């Protein structure tokens, strides 16, 4: 039990060290840092009822989660009425198998994909590629990440960790054989080059796979929001459209959608609305000129249903806007890949242990300063930092933390419950620290706390503690 835990810890810390010394990553993150935050603030300030809409959004999600079974059944019924198929997948493997089978039946050689974190969660691309299918990511960020052979480092900005220079090199390397031999460096030129490469892929794709921002129970529709329109080309051009979504994505009605859309884009990118908001309700009907002949929805559980009814249930409200990542100082310092799985930042640190296993993610809930900005900005008011504390408690109870750490915590807790003794015991080290450092005001080294003193001084305590002064009647 102990060995994998400690090796995982080393891995996390090693990833963090690499991230902190990765010049390109740090440049890219520094550039992204302020943008998302400022834009969200402006969008919020321009909508006085923003907080009230957040409450309404939370209530919609809570209502769905309390009645998830009925809404999922209604949704399934409506999709069938529209001529679509619904497939239920207990876990990632089942979901991949279902999708691979649909692709095989369709005789697919090329598959285009809209951005879908759930498909990342199920490791879909390698499974499809193993059966000889060419998979093309069509969201610009996902496309960049796919060319680089990486995974997204942000749930809405997959390539946020890349600098423009790196993208120039990637495009040059992968597009030269296609005839794009010039090295393009300007933002617009890069986008245009990707667009013209992707156009051909869209047209030649046999199957299109998208995620879903929402599933509408009353109409059996899936909703995707994008800024590039790639989701629409992926959904409507190929003869088969497959939607992948977690079971928590269902909401009752279009009316509810209008509430959730008002907080989604504002929280994510600071836009009032994304450039494209598209609602799909099944395959092409006889009177339609265009659209897919087949429409499939693959609903993934993968651990979500075990969160229902427990302390972590609020996490299922998440609408994947990325605001918690954008406002997290730890995420901004170490980037998404340091977290080790698909979902990074605060939402990832809550979800990863639940969906991907507690043992392999011990660091995540701890690598947080509990500053609470994530909870402050969450559009559906998920108490993220409280849930991270919940995880710490659970780690402690499951003995996933280090034995020494637990002993120290236990001793400290015992002492802290005995205030007199606590003051007595603390008096000596505080006095020593005072004597050693009171002239300069700081200690430059502290035995056992080199993690602190390596990069900062330790301010010395006052000659007499607040408690001592208070007890002796001193009042400022």
């Amino acid at each position, binding site marked *: 039990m102990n060995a994998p835990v400690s090796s995982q810890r080393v891995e996390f810390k090693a990833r963090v060290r690499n991230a902190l010394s990765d010049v390109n990553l740090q440049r890219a993150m520094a550039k992204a840092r302020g943008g998302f935050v400022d834009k969200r603030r402006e969008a919020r300030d321009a909508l006085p009822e923003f907080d009230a809409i957040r409450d309404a959004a939370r209530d919609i999600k809570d209502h769905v989660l309390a009645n998830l079974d009925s809404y999922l059944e209604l949704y399934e019924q409506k999709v069938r009425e529209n001529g679509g198929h619904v497939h239920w997948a207990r876990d990632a493997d089942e979901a991949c198998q279902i999708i691979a089978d649909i692709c095989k039946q369709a005789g697919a050689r090329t598959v285009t994909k809209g951005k879908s974190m759930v498909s990342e969660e199920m490791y879909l691309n390698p499974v499809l590629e193993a059966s000889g299918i060419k998979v093309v990511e069509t969201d610009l960020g996902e496309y960049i990440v796919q060319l680089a052979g990486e995974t997204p480092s942000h749930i809405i900005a997959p390539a946020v960790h890349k600098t423009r220079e790196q993208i120039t090199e990637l495009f040059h390397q992968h597009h030269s054989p296609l005839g794009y031999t010039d090295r393009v460096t300007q933002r617009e030129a890069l986008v245009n080059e990707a667009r013209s490469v992707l156009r051909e892929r869209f047209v030649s794709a046999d199957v299109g796979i998208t995620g879903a921002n929402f599933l509408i129970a009353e109409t059996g529709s899936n909703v995707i929001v994008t800024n590039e329109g790639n989701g629409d080309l992926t959904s409507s051009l190929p003869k088969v459209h497959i939607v992948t979504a977690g079971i928590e994505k269902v909401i009752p009605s279009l009316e509810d959608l209008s509430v959730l859309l008002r907080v989604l884009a504002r929280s994510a990118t600071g836009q009032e609305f994304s450039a494209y908001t598209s609602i799909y309700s099944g395959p092409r009907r006889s009177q339609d000129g265009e659209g897919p002949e087949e429409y499939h929805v693959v609903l993934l559980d993968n651990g979500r249903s075990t969160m229902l009814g427990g302390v972590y249930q609020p996490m299922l409200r998440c609408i994947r806007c990325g605001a918690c990542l954008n406002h997290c*100082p730890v995420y901004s310092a170490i980037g998404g890949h340091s977290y080790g799985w698909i979902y990074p930042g605060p939402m990832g640190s809550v979800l990863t242990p639940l969906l991907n296993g507690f043992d392999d993610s011990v660091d995540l809930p701890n*690598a947080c300063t509990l500053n609470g900005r994530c909870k402050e900005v969450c559009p559906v008011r998920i108490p993220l930092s409280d849930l991270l504390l919940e995880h710490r408690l659970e780690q402690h109870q499951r003995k996933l933390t280090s034995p020494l750490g637990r002993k120290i915590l236990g001793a400290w807790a015992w002492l802290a419950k005995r205030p007199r003794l606590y003051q007595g015991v603390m008096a000596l080290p505080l006095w020593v620290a005072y004597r050693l450092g009171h*002239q300069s005001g700081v200690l430059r080294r502290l035995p056992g706390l080199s*993690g*602190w003193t390596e990069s*900062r*001084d330790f301010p010395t305590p006052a000659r007499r503690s607040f408690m001592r002064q208070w007890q002796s009647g001193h009042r400022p």
Partner: protein
Amino acid sequence: MSVVASEDFFSVKYPDISARMVQDKCADIADTKADTILGGDLGCLLNIAGRLRREGRSTRVFHVAEVLAGMTDGPAIGEGDDPQ
């Protein structure tokens, strides 16, 4: 004032991340040209004051309560006994 990494021994458990965060924070503080910084969390204040001192900066750091109690004539955090 926004966020600094020190809560819950974070800086001892993850010194690399914490160091980066407090460096960024102190650079932001320097940019504001403020001569005094106030905060409400002791861990944060120790962290910032410790880093500012290490960088040799003279920015003073107080808890909000010290200001309310009129104690800013005395030493700030990390200034020792002698306010000079």
